């Protein structure tokens, strides 16, 4: 036995995304955002996408390109604070936005990746984020049912990968990438370095390759990934 090889090109990997797909996109601000996969998705032009991401990046960066190109029907995020374009589109009803508490978004995606249909939580009770949600009593206490969020596709940014799809991340570029890398039918990871099988130690792997479908080595680390001087 040997482990399957899942390495491919940016173009081939992104071509697997159909119109209308729900797509998990890693990243919290710049770190961990799969800028190259996003740009290829913009280039290929798939439409009617639902994106799930912590934030909408900043104007002119990352998924803002997909918003600007009209490829996005709906956004599920925790905040849009840094992207005035996204806020304007939401206010003009050109973009449907669903807000989720940050840790609950992470938990819903994790549940999707863990084959858990839903979690029960008290987070958001007493706020407008609880409106319309199913309530269950446990030990006499009301709890919200937060359903798992599993997607068609996940776009992941890793620091290191091997051809089987084992992934490791850098510093705070982890954020939503590890849970998202377990929670989609097609998990596509871009990696800054694609190492030969065996060069990532089994201890160092943070996302086991068994969850990952396609690995793409980035030909270059573009300016998108750099330090942002505000």
């Amino acid at each position, binding site marked *: *036995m040997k482990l*399957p090889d899942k390495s491919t090109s940016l173009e081939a990997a992104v071509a697997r995304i159909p119109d209308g797909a729900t797509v998990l996109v890693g990243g919290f601000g710049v770190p961990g955002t799969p800028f190259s996969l996003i740009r290829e998705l913009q280039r290929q032009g798939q439409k009617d996408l639902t994106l799930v991401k912590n934030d909408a990046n900043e104007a002119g960066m990352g998924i803002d390109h997909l918003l600007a190109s009209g490829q996005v029907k709906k956004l599920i995020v925790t905040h849009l604070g840094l992207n005035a374009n996204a806020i304007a589109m939401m206010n003009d009803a050109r973009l449907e936005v669903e807000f989720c508490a940050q840790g609950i978004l992470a938990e819903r995606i994790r549940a999707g990746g*863990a*084959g858990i249909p839903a979690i029960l939580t008290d987070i958001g009770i007493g706020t407008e984020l609880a409106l319309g949600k199913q309530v269950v009593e446990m030990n006499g206490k009301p709890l919200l049912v937060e359903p798992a969020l599993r997607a068609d596709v996940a776009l992941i940014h890793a620091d290191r990968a091997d051809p089987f799809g084992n992934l490791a991340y850098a510093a705070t570029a982890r954020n939503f990438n590890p849970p998202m890398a*377990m929670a989609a039918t097609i998990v596509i990871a871009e990696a800054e370095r694609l190492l030969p099988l065996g060069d*990532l130690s089994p201890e160092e792997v943070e996302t*086991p390759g068994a969850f990952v479908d396609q690995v793409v080595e980035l030909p270059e680390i573009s300016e998108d990934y750099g330090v942002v001087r505000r």
Partner: protein
Amino acid sequence: MSDVKLPEVKPIDPRTRMVARAARDITPGMVVNLGIGLPTKVINHLPADLPVCLHTENGMTGIGPTLPYEKADRNLIDAGGAYVSPVSGSAYFDSVVSFALVRSGRLDLTMLGAFEVAQNGDLANWKIPGKFSPGAGGAIELAQKARRVVVMTTHTDRKGNPKLLERCSLPLTAERAVDRIFTDMAVIDVTPEGFALRELAEGVSVTEVIAATGAKLILPDTDIPTF
């Protein structure tokens, strides 16, 4: 070219023949969990160049050969307690991630033992009330959530009673879970219509399989291959 004969290994032991046959159901790209006991032996029959990922539920993908005690790593076992080794590309993870993999559809195939299998796919393999009740470990999730569930078992128990039944009498591990059964006598699929005979072990007749099976057996119209 056609007269070049490939070396053919014909194991005589019916169990080994069953194990070798089961190994042929593992196809390229699969993530596979092999249960304790007979299923573990399937490893010995996989081609060296088959691209496949073995999973063990205590927290590892990419299982390599079992090691003798002298060479064992005290921290590296499979779920059956065997001292295993890593391969190039192995990963270690905790029990949470391990069962996330099982439940979320990333496990393509599991091979399990059985006390009883019913013709609707119900599986009983963890408890014999009053006699044997050590707990199910990870079997419930493996049986309920692997994309394909295959059972390996002797066709009958030690007393000769059938293990393939109309209904299970023992507490279930999972409902409607089993897709295929490999026994020392036959390969049988669980279909919406019930047990369907697919293959016969060499030297075993259809009549013998019918006699050893506790439920209706659907026979194919065509010749039955042997293994």
